[in-house]
């Protein structure tokens, strides 16, 4: 399997992971909104921090995807399979 095909499979897995984390963030947003309407301030900060952690994980995965892509392009430029 060539590197680009391997990358496509890898990206599929990472996309599923990122999508799952975004859905969890959506759930945190709705939970925070519900807590706000109920004036339950104790939930708001943990929800924000959890969402921030999930975003950092997503950013890390994206950074990995981009760096992987750059490496593939560089290798292809050198003629490495």
């Amino acid at each position: 399997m060539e590197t680009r095909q391997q990358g496509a499979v890898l990206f599929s897995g990472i996309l599923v992971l990122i999508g799952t984390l975004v859905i969890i963030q959506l759930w945190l947003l709705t939970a925070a909104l519900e807590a706000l309407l109920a004036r339950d301030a104790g939930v708001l900060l943990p929800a924000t921090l959890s969402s921030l952690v999930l975003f950092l994980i997503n950013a890390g995965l994206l950074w990995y995807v981009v760096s992987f892509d750059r490496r593939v392009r560089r290798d292809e430029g050198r003629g490495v399979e």
Partner: protein
Amino acid sequence: MADGVDNSEQWREDFPVRWDVDHYLTRRELAKFLTLGSALLVGATGAIAAIGRFGFQEIRARQWIASAAALQPSGSLLFRYPTSDDPCILVRTAAGELKAYSQVCTHLSCAVRHVPDKDEFFCPCHRGFFAVADGRPLAGPPTRRLPRILLEERDGDVYAVGVEV
């Protein structure tokens, strides 16, 4: 056949699309889009937290509602507190106790009505019921209690002095 492309067919020469490369690029762009959405969700959750922390001031304004004698047992009276956009309902229970709540249903903001014979509030939009004693939801779609209006009786008059959510 090389790289999954059958060059023997003419249409493949006319439309030389490498699907593996195409999917590869699309997924990368989708990953960027989802991460951007993730950042926006952090911002939205943070904004909600900021509103919860700084946006709500405790309401402690005193406002005259009615004379205490004007309300008979199982009777109710509508008023607005703390602003003219906040409808509320004052109730004297069958036991003679005064209670006041926001009239806005916590489900979808319809106006609740007093049911005197049951000492309940009824929301006609989706058949939600609340207890007059403490404003908690009894039946129907509402899950949150009605905000309670704090009352003070002085010299035969009833005043609203705050809102307890």
